[in-house]
């Protein structure tokens, strides 16, 4: 198995307050990892550090064996040179909680613009790929619509198509259903399940415990900035060993 993502000894604090304290994890090709934990546990910060929207204080961030971030002997972090960093950043995509679609672009342009502008792909090929992805997301009749004309679930599917268009090795989801009306959550979870069936490598921060159990190969439970417990879902969710995990999961039982 190829290691797609590795994080070593990640530390991050905001204003002296430690949010992530020595987090290490690995994600292998085709693996689906779900990160669960209470609000304020640091799970979203972990995702933001992994996607480099936040800069970690110390630790290592490695995609496909290439170091994006390392820590020097002086304890300060060292970023890869810009060229290498851009290459590494093309290895991953991110689906946001609030979609963050570009409101002035049509659905199709949202999906294809980065392909054309950033990856300099031929426009005709890009549009073809964009339409293919919209079909996959059951949005083929919406390509000319603008984001504000879509439901939250449709917007989130556009944003998944937008991330997939760049053909990432690892796809991150930051609480992809938290901004959705309850009746729209199912359609997004189904899309993610379909991607898992295609062996898309994914890291999902989620509150949907049942979904995490069904879709993930590996569950990481974070609390207070540390990994409290991790393993296959049947262990972490089915038979948690740690008292904090048990206390957290109890709140999701009917």
């Amino acid at each position, binding site marked *: 198995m190829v290691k797609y993502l590795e994080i070593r000894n990640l530390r991050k604090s905001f204003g002296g307050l430690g949010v992530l304290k020595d987090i290490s994890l690995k994600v292998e090709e085709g693996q689906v990892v779900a990160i669960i934990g209470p609000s304020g546990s640091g799970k979203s910060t972990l995702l933001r550090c992994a996607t480099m929207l936040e800069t970690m204080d110390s630790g290592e961030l490695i995609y496909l064996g290439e170091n994006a971030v390392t820590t020097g002997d002086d304890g300060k972090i060292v970023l890869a040179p810009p060229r290498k960093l851009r290459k590494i950043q093309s290895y991953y995509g*991110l689906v946001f909680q609030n979609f*963050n679609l570009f409101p002035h672009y049509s659905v199709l342009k949202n999906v294809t613009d980065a392909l054309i502008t950033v990856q300099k792909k031929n426009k005709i090929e890009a549009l073809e790929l964009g339409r293919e992805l919209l079909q996959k997301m059951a949005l083929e009749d919406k390509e000319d619509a603008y984001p504000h004309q879509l439901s939250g679930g449709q917007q989130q599917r556009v944003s998944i198509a937008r991330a997939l268009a760049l053909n990432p090795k690892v796809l991150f989801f930051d609480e992809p259903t938290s901004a959705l009306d309850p009746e729209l959550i199912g359609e997004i979870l189904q899309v993610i399940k379909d991607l898992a069936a295609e062996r898309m490598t994914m890291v999902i921060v989620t509150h949907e415990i049942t979904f995490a159990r069904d879709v993930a190969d590996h569950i990481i439970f974070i609390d207070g900035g540390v990994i409290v417990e991790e393993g296959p879902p049947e262990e972490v969710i089915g038979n948690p060993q740690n008292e904090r995990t048990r206390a957290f999961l109890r709140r999701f039982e009917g």
Partner: protein
Amino acid sequence: MELSVLLLKLTEGMWISTKIFVLTLLFSLPLGLFVAFGRMSKNPFIMNIVKLYISVMRGTPLVLQLMVVYYGPYFIFKLSTPDRFLAVIIGFVLNYAAYFAEIYRGGIESIDIGQYEAARVLGYNKSQTFLKIIFPQVVKRILPAVTNEVITLVKDTSLAFVISVSEMFTLAKAIASAQRSVLPYVVAGIFYYVFNFIVAVVMEWWENKLAYFS
């Protein structure tokens, strides 16, 4: 004076007013964007200089600023006085750029941080992010405020009289006092109103054109 002669004279003056209007917009709109960047600079030196500039431009009368641009070179530096029309354009551009800068800044700062983050994760570089993702959204948001400024500018062109640039209103005043008639003022008022009516129509058309997204 015949009405036709009056109209002809004021139309000539309106040509000068229109030149002031067009040239001011042409230079102050782009300059304002750079001023806005300076105002938002992380470098405290640049930020404070620009802040002071905006504060002076907004805090003193445009009439006074025009006088400084025109008479300043002689009285402060013992240089020759500049061309009157050029002085008017410089004064107007510096003043309006300050106002536009604050409008741009408000627009830019109102864009959700998520837009920048999405662009970044998708690999857009900084200039692509600004030009393709952020700026089009800023334009839509600031258009009503810009319309206000543009309409004010039409009326402000009359301030060029202070350094004797014979734009329309300067002529209207001269004719009115020579002829002991208020008619030139009535005509001048109609000229401004029609000009601003056209400005309002154009800006509304533009706003409607951008109504396709929200």
